[in-house]
């Protein structure tokens, strides 16, 4: 029986021995020792401090170098990529969002279509598609494709894979992320060996969903343990998976788009950017895929590597408009004067962020800054405007998502701005599941909340990101929160993404967002990839998708 207690790992008193005999020697020497050790540590750290650079390099887009030196630890046949995300299971449907489905998913599985960097759709497993009828989509399936176990791909597999992402009965058992709501889903059927017909109750852009539908064999759920195994058509087969640590893939020689040049592709998962940086420096990995701006200075000086911008990540803050005081657009506009954008940029994005705060649609095209709108950091003005609208001393809590350090950093700056304007506020950090429940789930969040994502394709999805859930659902109000915005949202959803009339609708949406202050603030920040100098062909399309099968060392 344990009968003595630890002091967080130490025992002070012995068991069964005379206390007097214990000379602990705690006296002047220990005191001096403590001081000495502290000074020593300070000195060491101080020396270390002056060595590190505090300038951050702007991401540079370089062509493949002619230098053939290879990063230590890698051969031309191997590429080990680190990522700042931890994957626990390989299920192609699970809520791992962007990280899994867009970064790693294309390693093992194929989607129906791919998107290139200009926004065009490129056939993948679907060679033709007919979306003229909003309720019925016809897909033609590529022939001659085989799964990793040798079985050929047919329309039945595609129909099953689509159903597995849309049919709520299948979703519950996978704890997956649906592509449409159950009320939109009707059926997906294989009409013949290479044609699939998908029927929905209204227009749903499932072909271009940012979390793409990855194709698995027919009826494979329940037979294949997808959490630990891979059975897809992708350019790599699974070699080894260690949950939470890493995954290794080996080139699929029978890949329909040509066997990949690099035989061994591995991913290592890191919870902590500093550990990822260490791994890169010590040669354990060759590249880091998603370096946030804040962490760029820790890895930009590694020899024989180059830095590429792998994408722009958008950050925005949405407002609980279902109840006072934030249901008043004037109050929302007053809050704009509480943001010290420069401080937020420094705190969250190491100064590398791009901001056109009030119009998030301009995030990716123009860095005109808040001055363009005449709005500067002016808490006094905010206070005045709030008083004018009878909203002095309001309470605006800020809700962040655990693990999104940039949002948490920005929130703390925003907190100070709010306080300076006399607004009562606090920062709350919720675990991802809790946040999802409160925002998209039940609509019970208060104040403002953080949201982030890759620039999605097509841009009508971006509007969806920006206004859903804040305009559609709130537990504090029956019906639509902002009827005009909700109506526009539905109209946009019903319009095909390649229809010409969509542009006018999106322009309308943009104006509404700015005029009614539906979205409080937006930031765009580059995400960088640090990779070996002689590596090229990693396929970023700017929308967060990454393909690896064309990567090659020169």
């Amino acid at each position, binding site marked *: 029986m344990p009968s003595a207690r630890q002091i967080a790992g130490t025992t002070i008193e012995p068991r069964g021995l005379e206390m007097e005999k214990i000379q602990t020697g705690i006296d002047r020497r220990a005191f001096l020792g403590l001081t000495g050790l502290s000074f020593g540590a300070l000195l060491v750290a101080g020396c270390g401090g002056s060595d590190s650079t505090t300038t951050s390099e702007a991401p540079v887009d370089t062509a493949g170098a002619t230098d053939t030196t290879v990063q230590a630890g890698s051969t031309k046949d191997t590429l080990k990529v680190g990522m700042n995300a931890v994957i626990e299971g390989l299920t192609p449907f699970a809520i791992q969002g962007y990280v899994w489905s867009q970064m790693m998913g294309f390693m093992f599985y194929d989607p129906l279509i791919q998107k290139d960097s200009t926004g065009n759709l490129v056939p993948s497993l679907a060679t033709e598609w007919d979306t003229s009828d909003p309720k019925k989509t016809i897909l033609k399936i590529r022939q001659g494709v085989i799964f990793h176990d040798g079985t050929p791909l047919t329309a039945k597999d595609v129909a099953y894979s689509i159903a597995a992402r849309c049919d709520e009965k299948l979703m519950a058992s996978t704890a997956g992320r649906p592509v449409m709501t159950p009320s939109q889903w009707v059926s997906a059927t294989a009409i013949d060996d290479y044609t699939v017909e998908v029927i929905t109750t209204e227009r749903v852009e499932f072909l271009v969903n940012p979390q793409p539908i990855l194709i698995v064999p027919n009826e494979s759920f329940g037979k294949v343990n997808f959490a630990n195994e891979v059975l897809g058509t992708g350019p790599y087969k699974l070699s080894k998976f260690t949950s939470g*640590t890493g995954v290794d893939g080996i080139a699929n020689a029978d890949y329909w788009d040509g066997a990949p040049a690099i035989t061994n592709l591995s991913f290592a998962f890191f919870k902590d950017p500093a550990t990822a940086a260490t791994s890169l420096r010590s040669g354990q990995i060759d590249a880091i895929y998603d370096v946030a701006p804040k962490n760029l200075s820790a890895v930009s000086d590694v020899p024989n590597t180059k830095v590429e911008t792998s994408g722009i990540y958008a950050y925005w803050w949405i407002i609980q408009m279902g109840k006072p005081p934030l249901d008043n657009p004037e109050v929302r506009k007053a809050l704009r004067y509480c943001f010290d954008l420069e401080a937020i940029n420094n705190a969250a994005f190491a100064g590398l962020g791009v901001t056109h705060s009030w119009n998030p649609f301009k995030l990716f095209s123009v860095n005109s800054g808040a001055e363009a709108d005449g709005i500067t950091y002016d808490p006094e003005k905010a206070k005045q405007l709030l008083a004018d609208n009878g909203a002095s001393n309001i309470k605006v809590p800020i809700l962040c998502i655990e693990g999104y350090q940039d949002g948490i950093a920005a929130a703390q700056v925003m907190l100070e701005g709010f306080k300076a304007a006399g607004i009562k506020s606090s920062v709350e950090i919720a675990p991802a*599941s809790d946040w999802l429940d409160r925002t998209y789930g039940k609509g019970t969040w208060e104040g403002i909340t953080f949201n982030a994502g890759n620039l999605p394709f097509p841009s009508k999805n971006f509007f969806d990101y920006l206004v859903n859930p804040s305009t559609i659902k709130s537990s504090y109000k029956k019906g639509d929160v902002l009827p005009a915005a909700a109506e526009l949202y539905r109209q946009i959803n019903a319009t095909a993404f390649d229809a010409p009339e969509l542009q006018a609708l999106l322009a309308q949406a943009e104006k509404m967002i700015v005029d009614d202050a539906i979205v409080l603030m937006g930031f765009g920040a580059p995400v960088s990839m640090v990779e070996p100098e002689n590596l090229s062909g990693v396929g970023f399309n700017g929308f967060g998708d990454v393909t690896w099968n064309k990567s090659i060392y020169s």
Partner: protein
Amino acid sequence: MVSSGSELTSSERSLRSGWRRVVSLVVGRLVQVALVLLAVTLLTFIILSAIPGSVIDARIGPLPNFSPEERERIVESLTKQLGLDQPLWKQYLLWLRQVIQGDFGYTYQGLRVTDLISQRFGPTVELGMVSVVVGLLGSLMVSLVAFRTRFRVVRGGIQGVMTLLLVMPAFWLGLILVLVIAVKFDLLPSGGYVALGDGIGDHLRFLVLPAMTLALPQTALFFRYLYAGLRDTENASFVIASRARGISERSVVYRHILPNAVLPTITVIGLVVGSLISGLVVVETVFSWPGLGSLLVKSVEVQDYGTVSAIVLITATLYVITAFIVDVVYEIIDPRTRRRV
């Protein structure tokens, strides 16, 4: 006196009854252990059920884009499946039966908790055992040096450092080691893991810093007991007698004092397991070592009650069993116990 063949000599008799005592003690303790383990599962279950719906959330998590009615239907079917509409004591028995069979349910990403835990089990055990061994050896060396040195400064210095190590939290010690060894001098990586199969050299490089961070406080812990034991035994009569007889100091120390001083240290091993488990949680997080400790922290972060309760149960069980084994071993090898009739 009629002597039957079954009559025992007095020493044999005392030996026999001594062993009998030990066996009865072991059986008694085993019963206690079983009861305690049962109570541990009960307490775990009670805490787990403190909030309504936690068991369900552990299985499916929130599903965005589902209407509340849809989620309710799924929750209903899972409730039936998991027996959550039963009275609490029935739930406990159902849960207990699953636990004994090793089924801890699923994480909300669909991975079996048992699989996840068994993957992470190895690295934790490895780190723990390496650090205990290093800690023991280190404390042996340090205690002997402190014991035999002639210079008060050395002795005081060692005692001071050992005490310091006991009050430094693991993450602080880890940071110092990382700053000096990894960042400043770039000798070792500041965190991460390479599997044994992927290269012994690399594997060891990643093992050194976390093992040291865990081992140093263990050294300090063992040192206290070992050193006190050495001092204690020094005053024992048989040592004085040996010295008087002119046996070399070296021999006295290594053959007489040391073995007797080590005895009480063995009881400390039970304590060490408890502190080790707590220490592992922090050290694994600091160095991103993929073991049960870092899994526990991550599960707490994402509120994955299934994994958390599984790890809690496993570590508590390990702790209880280790303490039991240590107690039994101590009873057996302590000559004072055996000699008693």
